[in-house]
C-alpha cells in the first residue's frame, strides 16, 4: 500500500479521537523530515478543524511539535512514549501530550 494511503487511514482514525480546535503535530517514527513534511500536508487536509503544527517544512525540521496538544506518529510506537496513548493502529499511534 502506498505511504499516502497508509497515512490517509491513520489520519482518518485519528480524526475520531482528536477534538475539533485542538492542536496536533504529525510525526514519523523513525523521525524523518522528508516524511514529516508530507505528513503535515496530508494532515492539513484530513484533520479539518484542528490546528496542524508542522514538525517539518520543505524537508527541514521545525521543532514546533513541542507546542502541540496531540501527536500522531506514523510507524512503530515511539519510545519513550511522548504522552498518553489514545489510539494504536497497524499504521501508527495517537498521543495526548502531557504538559509538565
Amino acid at each position: 500500500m502506498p505511504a499516502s494511503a497508509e497515512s490517509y487511514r491513520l489520519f482518518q482514525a485519528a480524526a475520531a479521537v482528536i477534538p475539533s480546535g485542538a492542536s496536533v503535530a504529525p510525526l514519523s517514527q523513525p523521525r524523518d523530515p522528508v516524511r514529516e513534511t508530507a505528513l503535515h500536508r496530508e494532515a492539513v487536509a484530513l484533520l479539518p478543524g484542528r490546528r496542524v503544527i508542522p514538525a517539518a517544512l520543505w524537508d527541514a525540521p521545525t521543532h514546533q511539535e513541542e507546542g502541540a496538544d496531540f501527536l500522531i506518529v506514523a510507524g512503530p510506537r515511539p519510545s519513550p512514549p511522548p504522552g498518553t496513548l489514545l489510539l494504536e493502529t497497524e499504521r501508527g499511534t495517537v498521543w495526548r501530550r502531557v504538559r509538565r
Partner: protein
Amino acid sequence: MKAGYLWLSSFACLPLAGWPLLAHPGYRTLSLAARTGLAFAAGAALLSGWMTALALVGLPWQPAVLVALAGATAFALRLSLSNERTALETPPFEGPAGLLEKSAVFLSVLSILAALVAAASSAATSADLILLWGAKAQAFAAARTIDASFLRDPSLVYMHPSYPPLVTNLQAFATQAAGRFAWGAATLTFPLLIAVLACSLPGALRLTASRRIAWAASALAVSALGFLGGELGVGGNADPWLWTFEALATAILIGPAARSGAGQLLAELLLAGTSAAKVEGLLFAAAAVTLFLMLRRREVRIGSAVAFLVIPSAVSLGSWFLFEATRHVFYGYEQYGRFLDVHWDRLSLVLSGIGHALWSAGWALPYLLPLAALLLAPARHRLLWLPVGVSLALCAFSVFTYLHGDPDPSGWISWSAGRIFSPVPVLLVIGAVGARPEQH
C-alpha cells in the same frame, strides 16, 4: 457515503443555475443533452464568479443564495439576448444515425465508464486533491468564504495561494451542501465532467459539421481525455474542469454560432470559466479571443465581440486578483523564476522531458491520433488556426515556463507536462472539424 452522494449531487445545481440562459429560444437548435451540458458549464462559471465576488465584498456564502444569484444572472443574460438577432443557425436535418454515429456514441459511453472505474478505484486520484484543491476547498467551506488567513499561512504556501478560484469555489460549494468534504466523491468529478463533455460537445460541433463528423470528433476527444485522465491521475483536480470549458468554448468559436449574440454570450461564459479554472486558462482565453478576432474580423462586429468575449473573463479574474491584493495574499500569479531569466541551455533537456512525458501516456497515441485527424482532414479552412494556434501558444508557454526556475526541471516536467499538454488533443480534434470548409 451519504455525504459523498450529497457532495456530488450538489453539482446538479449547476445546470439549474445555467438553464435560464440555455432555455432561450436562440439555443433551441442544440440538442437537449448539449444544452444541459452547456448549462452545467455556464452555471459553474456563474456560481464560482458569484462566490469570488461575495468573498471580495466580505459576504458569507450560502448555497441556496449562490444558486439563486447564478440563476438570476443567467436570466438577466437571457434578457440581454431578446432584442437582437440571436438564434443559432439550424443544422440541416439528417436521417437516422448510421453505424459510424452509433460507434461514436458507444466509444463515448465506454470512455465515461472507463473514467468512472479509474476514479472509483482510486487509480485516477490526483495527489493534488489532498495537497491543495481539497484542503483549500474544505477550509473555504468552513469559513464560508475564500479564507485569506489560510492562504496567507506561510506553512501552507505549497498550496499555491495565487491559483485561480473556480475549482476550490465549486468544491467548497459542494462541501457546504454536503456538510463535509467528501474525498471519494471529489475524484468522481473526473468521470462527471467527461460525461458533461460527451453530452455537450457533439451538439456544439454539430453546428459546424455534419452529424457523422461531429459525433466522431467528439468521441475521439472524449476517449483521449478519458484515457489521459486515468493515466495522469486527474481525479479531483482542476484539469477536467479546464478541458470542459476549453473544448466547448473552442467548438463554439470555430462555428457559425460565434456570429450570433447567443453563441458569443455562451463562449464568453465558457472563457470566463476557463480563465478562472487554472493559471494556463488565462493564456488559453487570451489566445482564443485574439485568434477569433483575427480570423473572423469580417464576420462579426469587433467592438461588441471584444466586449462579449473579454468582459466576463476580466470581471471573473479581476475580482480574484482584487481579492488577492486587498487581502494581502498575493499580487497576480506566482512565477517560476524571473520572467526574462530564460535558461536556453536547458532546451534539449526540457524538450526530451516533455517528449518522454507525452510518450509515457499510451505511446503518445492520445496526441498522435488527433494530430492524424487534423492532418488527414480533406481541406484547410482558415478557422482551423484558432484551435491549432491556441495549442501552439499553450505548448510555447509551457516550454518557456520549464526554461525557468529549477536547474533540473526533469522531475517537474515528469509530473506536470502530461497535464499541461492534455488539452491539446481536444484542440487538434476541433481543428480537424474546423478545417472542413463546407460548414463555414
